[in-house]
């Protein structure tokens, strides 16, 4: 249990901006966002890949400074958590087994931890490392799937988990940035971006029925399917809002900064798109762009992203696992037509992500662009809480987290009685 409030620092190094959120988590798990600092990357990162390392270090340093000033809290390097994304991040299923050898043949915490530990010994492609493990279910005696096996009698326990893995240099580069800023990250601080977002934008119902989370950032689009316990699939498509802006820039011969503004600002609202033309003022000359052309360019790109996603996951698998539809987050979720396009494509309900479970007065956090950042704060507080309570596993471990919260609730109820 916390003895005092923990100051958590969440860092999201994205293609368009580097944002830092400092928040406080109290012993009962309430999280308050206190201060936000952000800096635009100005092409130091393209398609989620760092192109100008020094620039990124400089901008992260400035963003951290702003967040410290705005929150009036100091940053503890042990409490920094950051999101990871990049080309080639994928997930694979892994399984770890343990034989129950105790006299009663009942499953205890020891067997559970051994099975979980074994499931983490999965073989990965060369130069790849595991970024996160998400525990899914347990299988007893090779056939019975259970969520919580503790106390059950069995001869064999298998732990099923999903391993998110990627190129080793991706994580190393993120750590190097922090090291150059002056924070040595020695703890497990990285989490794949959509896993972080899921912490604040998915409900229990979403998890139960299955949902596809699509985080469309400036340079990349990350996706993950959450279904039941654990999750099902995830990946990164190196296409983001910058590609839409680039297409608009090429189609209408306008500068990329203007095209970006059109996407980011609320210029292209649904109402606005009902007009015949979009009028742009450039050097005193007004430019009339047919709205239908603009919509076509955007539609072609967005639909292509959905098609790649559909191909990567598999249409059949996708339909089976997203009972609660699709949730869009990231800057792409703000594009006026994206919800309609996603509904037409996936033939299911689509909604923008909203941030839950975070208090505070920072209104920006309601924007889908900050979903990952808010999720990181939540993830960080969960890690700190689980680490201090049990001290067993320091990583994302949903099942253990559930056990801990359950025991915490029952303990507090007992105290009240």
């Amino acid at each position: 249990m916390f003895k005092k409030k923990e100051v958590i620092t969440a860092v999201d190094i994205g293609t368009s901006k580097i944002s830092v959120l400092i928040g406080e988590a109290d012993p009962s798990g309430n999280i308050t966002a206190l201060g936000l600092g952000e800096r635009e990357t100005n092409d130091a990162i393209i398609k989620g890949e760092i192109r100008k390392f020094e620039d990124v270090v400089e901008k992260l340093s400035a963003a951290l400074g702003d967040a410290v000033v705005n929150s009036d809290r100091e940053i503890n390097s042990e409490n920094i958590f950051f999101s990871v994304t990049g080309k080639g991040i994928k997930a694979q299923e892994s399984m770890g087994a343990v034989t129950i050898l105790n006299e009663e043949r009942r499953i205890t915490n020891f067997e559970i931890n051994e099975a979980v530990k074994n499931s983490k010994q999965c073989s990965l492609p060369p130069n790849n490392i595991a970024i996160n493990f998400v525990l899914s279910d347990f299988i007893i005696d090779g056939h019975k799937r259970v969520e919580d096996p503790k106390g059950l009698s069995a001869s064999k326990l298998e732990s099923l988990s999903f391993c998110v893995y990627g190129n080793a240099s991706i994580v190393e580069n993120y750590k190097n940035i922090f090291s150059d800023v002056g924070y040595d990250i020695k703890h497990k601080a990285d989490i794949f971006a959509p896993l972080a977002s899921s912490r604040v934008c998915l409900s229990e119902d979403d998890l139960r029925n299955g949902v596809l989370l699509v985080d469309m950032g400036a340079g990349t689009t990350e996706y993950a399917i959450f279904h039941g316990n654990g999750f099902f699939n995830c990946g990164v498509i190196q296409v983001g809002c910058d590609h839409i802006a680039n297409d608009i820039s090429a189609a209408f011969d306008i500068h990329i900064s203007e095209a970006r503004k059109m996407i980011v600002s609320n210029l292209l609202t649904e109402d606005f798109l009902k007009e015949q033309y979009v009028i742009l003022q450039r050097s005193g000359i007004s430019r009339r762009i047919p709205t239908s052309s603009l919509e076509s360019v955007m539609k072609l790109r967005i639909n292509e992203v959905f098609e790649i996603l559909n191909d990567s996951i598999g249409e059949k698998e996708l339909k089976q696992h997203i009972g609660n539809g699709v949730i869009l987050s990231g800057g792409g979720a703000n594009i006026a037509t994206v919800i309609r396009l996603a509904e037409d494509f996936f033939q299911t309900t689509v909604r923008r992500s909203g941030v839950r479970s975070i208090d505070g007065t920072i209104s920006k956090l309601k924007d889908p662009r900050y979903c990952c950042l808010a999720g990181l704060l939540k993830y960080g507080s969960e890690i700190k809480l689980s680490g201090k309570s049990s001290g067993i596993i320091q990583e994302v471990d949903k099942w253990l987290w559930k056990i801990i919260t359950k025991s915490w609730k029952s303990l507090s109820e007992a105290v009240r009685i």
Partner: protein
Amino acid sequence: MKQSESENNEKYSNPAKIAILGLGGAGVKICAELVKTALKFDIAVLDFDEKSLMSFSGGKIITPKNSFHGYSSGTGGDIIVGERLSSLCRQKISEFLNGHEILIAIAGMGGGSGSAAAPIVAREAKKCGIQTIFLVTLPFSFEGHKRRILAEKSIENLIIDADIVIPIANDILFSSMPADSPFAEAFLKADIEITKATEELSKIFTSENYISSTLPNLKNIVNRKKTTCIIGYGESKVESSDFSVRAVEQLFDSPLLGGLSEVRKSDAALIVISAGEKIGIGPIKRTFERVKIQLKDDAEIVCVLSKSPDEKSFKVTLIGIKYDETNLFQKTTQKKHLLEKKKTTYTQDELPLFTPKKGIFTNSSDNFYKNQDLDIPVFQRKGINIDPGQ
């Protein structure tokens, strides 16, 4: 496989004899540019306009006897006059062509001189047993429907006797330039682009080849059916570390290629790398792969590696060949009236009026998915025309 030494020696001593012939006003302009290059080929022009011919020097001029028969200021766009005058030049054309192996002819279609002369030249070349490659430009869309139809009919006539016809839409050439480019510069660039294409075509037939030889392969893939072709080339200086990438990027930006969507349509392709002998095999392999990835999976590909005397430059040339599935222009001795009887028309595929550009992603890492470069705008890859507004 490297050719034997004796074959190489023979190749050096007896290089492919190439003749270049400019037909009509457009052809004369291109040949005027070509004579300025270091090429050592026989260059001649055929035109009926005295003023136009004044701009050309350094090569042979073919005109009808008796001072143009009163048509010293050209045909005035009349194809019948053009045909009459061209017929009078038959003997001179044959004389020029004799002793050559390949003819590269350049003509502007849609007018009176080039449109009329091209089929006649093709026929004469065929009689002489010369392989013919025609680079023809199609009129601008704003020049009207009539010129377009005239150009298409001329190509119909030309394609009966010519071996390879590479039709180049003028609109494509200018689509790669900003709207505010000075017109003189724009027209000059168009001339230069076609000049370079001709230059590259002629060079690849004369260099020493390693992997396979160019001309027999090109003959093999184009002689089966009648074809339409696209041509692109890219060049980079070997001093830069990523010279192979730069050359391929330039290749796909080449205005005469018509964009990646056209490349994907090619049924067969000839990829020619021309490099100095010290270039490593790694970049050459990667370059072939980079070009190959853009082609159809079942496309027939012929890779040619030729030694270039210029050690500092690295060149990639791509000739994409699209077979005419209807066999409309099957190589045949059918007479023109038989073709007309079938009431068939030649229609050129609509070519995209833009060059695919990566924009802000130009210098970023590759982003391919199923042979598609995701950094290129989707509408360009799919060849969809977008109304840009005013």
